[in-house]
């Protein structure tokens, strides 16, 4: 298990955090590669189903960001 890296499913709002992620990329900032980004049209689209579905299918963490 020494090579274990967490998989974190990230639900990012198109207009907020997804924009921030884009800007971070354009600005050549470094951040950990553990997040798997899912773009949602708005955090209002978020549902408890998504969070549980992510965990059920093996996510180690879930991050919701507006």
């Amino acid at each position: 298990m020494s090579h274990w890296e967490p998989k974190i499913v990230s639900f990012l709002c198109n207009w907020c955090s997804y924009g921030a992620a884009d800007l971070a990329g354009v600005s050549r900032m470094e951040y950990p590669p553990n997040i798997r980004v899912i773009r949602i049209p708005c955090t209002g689209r978020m549902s408890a189903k998504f969070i549980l579905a992510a965990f059920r299918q093996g996510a180690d963490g879930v991050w919701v960001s507006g």
Partner: protein
Amino acid sequence: MLAYIEKIKEISRRLLQEGNVDMVIGFRRGTVPMMNEPCFVKTPEDVDNLVWDSNCGINLANYLTNRQEKIGIVAKGCDSRNIVTHIIENKIKRDQLVIIGVPCKGMIDRHKIQAMFETEIEHVTELDDKITIKGVGFEKTLEKKDVLQDNCALCIHRNPVIHDELVGDLVDEQKNIDRYKDIRNIETLSPEEKWRYFDNLLSACIRCYACRNACPLCYCPTCFVDESRPQWVGKSIDPIDIRTFHFLRAYHCAGRCTDCGSCERACPMGIKVRLFTKKLEKDCLELFDWEAGMTLEKRPPLDTYRPDDPDDFIK
């Protein structure tokens, strides 16, 4: 109780004769003891089928969704709150309804009573606050207050919140009830302890969905458990699937559940499913000062935004 029955019949007969309603939804005697069943009365002659006693725990608001006709409905305190919720959620219009309010003193818990006896119960009769249970070779009289459904013992809204007719005098509401003792106990557990606690609690679940079907809030045309693309919940009795079902169902009921106890009553395995819905009820009360179904004037907390909504969980 007997007075209630006559009054329910009298009001129903009058409503049907005058043509104010197309049908009256009430209870009739069930085929087995302690299981009164819902009954749709459409003619004045059938009114005599209606009954009322301490076995009317089913929530009749369940039968109101998407109906077009004019309906008279017999409603306890909790039923009336679910009717309010239905009106707020546009599942039925207020002017379609004639609500026959029944001040309620609690329903008896068939699981509890059956557990006291080893053989089948054949007759259950009640007189005032005494319940008499009869079966082959035994007869026993119990105090009603000892065999109330858990939610009825903790009920603080026994009187209907909206009604057009009333079958009796309003009853005294129970005061100084600590509704959330069991929930607080669970909240103090660590994540691992909670995990084990819920594993244990849900181990008996056979995924029959009786709790969902009995619930007046569960009126989605396709329930998330039946959706297959994407499939949120597997069909098996895998423990994770069971857990997903119960937690998501509870979240769907957040801010809407009136703790009528139908889910727990319906459960064939006697699982305390109310623990889930009650946790969210407690949260809604503490975070938003909200009790479901108390007024037609206010929107529920989960479909309104206020700048002072709690947001400590957001970084």
